[in-house]
């Protein structure tokens, strides 16, 4: 089943090449159908998932390059399950958006997009580290094409920057992976790239530092962690709508996923040693991203910087090394994927109509575009973390975890939440509220039925994840606990007890309505807005 999900998009992409160049409609329908089919099959992962175990499920395992003990080994656990679902969920929606956002070389666009989907899903399901690396790199190329061919004016620069940044990071990771495999060969006599067996390695602490650095650099660039974020605004601004959605929605999660799956559990000592630095960088990223977002005249750039800020939260949650923090981080990854994906789609909607992304070109859209205004409202509120929507759950858990780990860091991070509300609300206010100042905007049409079909599932999921997080959190729990147990298996082993017995589900139920929570206090505005 997992292989089907991985390879249906790739096979469809190859099939598209056989189509006539002018059969645009057919190409779109085929791609949409295939990605929808992929999503439907991936739902089977969700329903069939056993939340009582941390082991990989739906495992498929075949020898691939036996000379190096490399296997085609895929499966999902509580950590990757939702990221796979997020990918398969967003992909058909993005393809749906291409009906209006992509007019030239549609077939080629869809070709690259579907290959990208295969790469992304493959990255999440790979258990063999070599396989992971292959998918990780495979993903780069189609994204590079999407930005470089269908992007804006400075697309070539942005695409190349994106490619080179990520490539430098990942190549160093390759050496680290090789080192791990040969260390396993030395310690256990077999050469393997099986992650589960690599977890059992006894890695000397000073080697851990180097290896962690190699992995962390690669992932930090992808996240992007401050100060490795400079490729992101360029890539986002120049990318076509679909590219931005996937970039923000899924690709950025590759970095945080990499930390949780590889860098932290493989090198616990180094992770603990690096935690203060990375937490500091995350907090800087949160505040810096928010402040820069505050002054952006370009909507897309604003959302891009807001991603830097939000992903800082995710990193904070991961490096809190407790169950609330990590589950919150995972939840926030999904939440951010939905809300930021939706935000980029919304920017795309007005961009297709007006061909500008400058905030000052808009204003007073609520009268002309009531549907757009309401969708935007919910998305914006979800992004700033209003209770009842998906963003809240993740942010809350992350802050809960962070305060346990480090009060000071938590306190600074909270200011990021406040700033997040400020720039989002200001954006909304300047685009949607006020008088209609530009005559061009008076002729704009509201969301079409196709566009509604894109946004309704997104909004529904935001509400579901905000109101009823249990089915999500319960499936994550075992895997996150297992991962935390590995992270706490440090050389001096002092902090085993800090894996709390309170699961995130319970703590959320107990605390989410607590009025003293800093999140609830600060924004009376958004409560009104939501009601």
């Amino acid at each position: 089943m997992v292989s089907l999900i991985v390879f249906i998009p790739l096979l469809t992409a190859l099939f598209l090449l056989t189509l006539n160049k002018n059969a645009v409609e057919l190409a779109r329908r085929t791609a949409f159908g295939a990605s929808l089919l992929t999503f439907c099959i991936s739902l089977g992962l969700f329903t069939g998932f056993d939340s009582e175990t941390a082991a990989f499920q739906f495992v498929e395992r075949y020898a691939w390059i036996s000379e190096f003990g490399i296997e085609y080994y895929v499966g999902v656990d509580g950590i990757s399950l939702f990221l796979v679902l997020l990918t398969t969920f967003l992909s058909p929606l993005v393809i749906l958006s291409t009906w209006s956002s992509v007019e030239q070389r549609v077939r080629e666009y869809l070709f690259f997009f579907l290959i990208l989907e295969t790469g992304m899903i493959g990255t999440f399901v790979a258990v063999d580290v070599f396989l992971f690396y292959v998918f990780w790199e495979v993903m780069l190329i189609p994204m590079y094409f999407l930005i470089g061919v269908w992007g804006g004016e400075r697309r070539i620069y942005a695409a190349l920057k994106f490619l080179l940044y990520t490539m430098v990071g990942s190549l160093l990771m390759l050496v680290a992976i090789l080192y791990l495999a040969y260390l396993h060969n030395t310690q256990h006599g077999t050469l393997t790239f099986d992650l589960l067996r690599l977890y059992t390695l006894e890695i000397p602490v000073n080697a851990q530092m180097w290896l962690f650095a190699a992995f962390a650099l690669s992932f930090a660039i992808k996240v992007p962690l401050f100060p490795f974020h400079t490729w992101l605004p360029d890539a986002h601004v120049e990318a076509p709508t679909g590219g931005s959605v996937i970039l923000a929605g899924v690709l950025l999660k590759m970095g945080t996923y990499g930390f949780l799956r590889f860098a932290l559990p493989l090198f616990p000592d180094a992770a603990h040693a690096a935690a203060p630095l990375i937490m500091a960088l995350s907090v800087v990223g949160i505040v810096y991203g928010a402040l820069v977002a505050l002054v952006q005249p370009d909507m897309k750039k604003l959302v891009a910087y807001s991603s830097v800020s939000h992903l800082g939260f995710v990193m904070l949650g991961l490096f809190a090394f407790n169950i609330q923090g990590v589950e919150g981080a995972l939840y926030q990854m999904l939440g951010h994927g939905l809300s930021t994906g939706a935000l980029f789609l919304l920017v795309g909607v007005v961009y297709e109509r007006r061909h500008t992304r400058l905030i000052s070109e808009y204003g007073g859209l609520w009268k002309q575009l009531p549907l757009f205004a309401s969708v935007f409202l919910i998305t914006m509120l979800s992004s700033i973390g209003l209770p009842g929507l998906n963003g809240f759950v993740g942010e809350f858990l992350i802050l809960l975890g962070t305060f346990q780990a480090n009060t000071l860091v938590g306190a600074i991070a909270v200011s990021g939440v406040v700033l997040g509300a400020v720039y989002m609300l200001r954006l909304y206010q300047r685009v949607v509220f006020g008088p209609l100042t530009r005559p061009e905007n008076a002729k704009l049409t509201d969301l079409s039925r196709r566009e509604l079909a894109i946004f309704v599932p997104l909004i529904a999921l935001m509400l579901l994840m905000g109101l009823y997080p249990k089915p999500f959190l319960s499936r994550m729990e075992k895997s996150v606990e297992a991962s935390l147990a590995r992270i706490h298996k440090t050389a001096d082993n002092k902090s085993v007890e800090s894996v709390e017995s309170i699961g995130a589900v319970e703590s959320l139920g107990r605390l989410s309505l607590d009025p003293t929570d800093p999140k609830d206090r600060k924004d009376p505005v958004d409560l009104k807005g939501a009601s």
Partner: protein
Amino acid sequence: MDMTLPAINWLSVLPTLLLSATGLLALFWDIWIKDDERSLLGWLSLTGIVATALCSWLLWGHNDVVSFSGMFALDAYALFFNLVFCLVAALTVLMSLRYLETAEIRHGEYYALILFATVGMMVMAAATDLIFIFLGLETMSIAVYVLAGIWRQHLTSHEAALKYFLLGAFASGFLLYGIALIYGATGSVQLGPIAEHVGAQGSSPLLLIGMGLLIVGFGFKVAAVPFHVWTPDVYQGSPTTVTAFMAVGVKAAAFAAFARIFLHTLGAVHADWQGILWVVAALTMTVGNITALVQHNIKRMLAYSSIAHAGYLLVAMVAGKDLGGAALLYYLVAYGLMNLGAFGVMVAVGRKGEPHEELDDYAGLGFRYPALGMAMTVFMLSLTGVPPLVGFTGKFYIFSAAVQAGYIWLAVIGVLNSAVSAYYYIRVVVNMYMRDGDAIVELPSLRSALGVAILIAAIGTVLMGVFPSASMSLAGASFLSLG
């Protein structure tokens, strides 16, 4: 004094004889053949090459075919290289059929020279005697000197030939001197006795100097820094197909002999030569890649890229042992496929009087000629080392050998170089897909020889990348046959 003729095992020289005979046939047929039928010479050569490859394939497993008093061994190692050289020669001939028309080069001697050069390469890979290796090297080199200058209408071709000849002769001198010193140190020019002597006695100053001179000689042939200065001019000036043949074939042959001598025969004193090769490898990768960054002519860019790839191959030499040797063999095939493919696309893009070698000529090519664009993209990405293409598995093989042998910093330098190389390879892709241009190309059909050559290279690049297992074990077994 009695002269006894050494026992000659004709089977062991069968592939070499077959190819030499074809070469001679091509040379003589050229005298009678009509001008408009000269492309038949190409097909004749191709038949000879395929027969040779087939013959080498059938001889696989007859490992005892040592002949001429131990001067020549057709072991799996030699057979593997025979297959590589046949592949290179076959693809070169397929590409040349069209190129010779557009570049207006006479067919006759061209094909014969390609075949003779290939024979020289095969001798280099199979020889187990330093003098015999030298004979192979000279057979190959002299043929290639002529090939470099065969484009008589072009001054750059003359320059290339002269430069290559002078520096090549100089390098041969170094090599010969190195052989003499090694003979002085060990008392033999045969690899077996040398290995025994070195294994028992270790190294001596004389041996060290000899090895150093050999490294200089081979360094010239594989275009390693600092012996690479001839490469860009020679590669750019020579006819494109000859450049492809040199970049892949000559390099592979030089590495075949280089690795047989150093990894196998002088393996016991690995510690004595690995340090200098470490430095050479690091320099070669870095200088090659960084200089390639600023090139605007694709042929010249590929010349620097071939220097860089020599650096990666040297990493495999430094790593040594079975894994390093196997990685070297595998990477030579990988490099051959993707590089010949890239040159094939260059031939396809060129037209009579318009070589289209500048980066700007490739603008917009990708969408106007999708198949050609896709093939070039595959080759460029593979040269960069993007999975799942063969360039990636090859680099993976080499760097894992380096890590296994403990040369982690060399591996780090290597991967960083790959990242640098991404910039200039990707620039070709950028031009093909992200800029607009108007170069008109006579697209080769899939049925044309050139189309077949590009297709073979592309399919090989993808398939060997996705399913590397079979070719890896073949490379591994071949290297192990050295004993």
